[in-house]
């Protein structure tokens, strides 16, 4: 503890009125449990949505008329399974958060920025695995003996998906660059420290 006399600004800061918010341990437990439930259901929603997509792809696979379409739906099922497995393996846990909480601020902040950068930068982990299936589906639609109109609808849909994906990637790349800039600043401060 610092025993030197407080400056007027320190006094001003430390003597400011506070609401005196208190939470009992039981209340903390309740809120922590509510938070964990919210996380659980958020993850569950993602797995359930992915599961529904896999069921739909398998239905289309079973009812597809040509081999290329079947391969395309099989690839989409594989891609979706990969995305769900990635989510499961990379998903954060409260245990990891607890272990990080008491780290020194510089280390914690750099890790936090790096985590956010990786999440925003690596969009391919959920866009990429589905791309081969989508391409294959388009090829099968173009080769199928249908009306030119339905082919154009398919191509237009794919182009829209590509455009939306591109926009998402652009926005996230910008965010990743901003985060990288902050990481570099912190790292350079550390290097300056070490050389001093």
């Amino acid at each position: 503890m610092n025993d030197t006399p407080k400056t007027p600004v320190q006094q001003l800061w430390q003597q400011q009125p506070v609401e005196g918010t208190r939470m009992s341990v039981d209340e903390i437990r309740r809120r922590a449990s509510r938070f964990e439930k919210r996380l659980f259901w958020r993850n569950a929603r993602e797995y359930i949505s992915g599961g529904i997509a896999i069921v739909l792809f398998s239905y289309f696979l079973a009812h597809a008329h040509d081999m290329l379409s079947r391969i395309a739906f099989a690839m989409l099922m594989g891609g979706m399974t990969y995305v769900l497995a990635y989510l499961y393996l990379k998903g954060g846990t409260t245990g990891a958060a607890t272990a990080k909480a008491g780290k020194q601020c510089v280390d914690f902040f750099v890790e936090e920025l790096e985590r956010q950068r990786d999440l925003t930068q690596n969009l391919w982990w959920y866009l990429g695995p589905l791309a081969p299936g989508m391409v294959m589906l388009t090829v099968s639609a173009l080769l199928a003996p249908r009306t030119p109109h339905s082919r154009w609808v398919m191509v237009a849909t794919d182009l829209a998906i590509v455009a939306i994906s591109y926009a998402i990637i652009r926005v996230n790349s910008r965010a990743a660059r901003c985060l990288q800039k902050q990481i570099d600043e912190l790292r350079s401060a550390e290097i300056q420290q070490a050389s001093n």
Partner: protein
Amino acid sequence: MIATEAIPGSKSSQDELYSEAATTYGAALERLARAYEADPDIRRDLLQEIHIALWRSMEGFDHRCSLRTWIYRVAHNVGASHVARQYRTRPEALVGLEEFESLPDPQAGEAAADRTLALNRLLEMIQRLKPLDRDVILSYLEGLDAVEIGDVTGLSARNVATKIHRIKNILARFFQEGGQSHE
């Protein structure tokens, strides 16, 4: 440092440590939340988030640093994450102490005689700082010495000393505090 005879890592130890921390440092945590969030409703949520993180962290508290240092680390880390989420795409909205020193103060020279006005100006200033600089100035205002600030933030003693020097200059300029040594 707060003395505790609880067994580290046990549930009762976690609860006891948290209770002691909340009792002793509750007001400091509130002040800290105020420095990280201006909106009162979001601030209430942030304060709750800090308390929950603190309670959770006590499970892993290994007494390698003082409880006080641990509490400040956890609270600052939650606050820094909050700021990082807000300014993810526009970090330029926040400035470092170095840049702050050279910024013209529109009210420079005017003594902030009224305590509320002075406190508001101080809060506004802190809320414009980058997270790490915010950690340092808040620790300084809470009365931690340079060694403790280094232990909380992970910055070297030399770097902390430089930052404290800058903080004193800025505060002197803002509040005409000058001439009072406090390292």
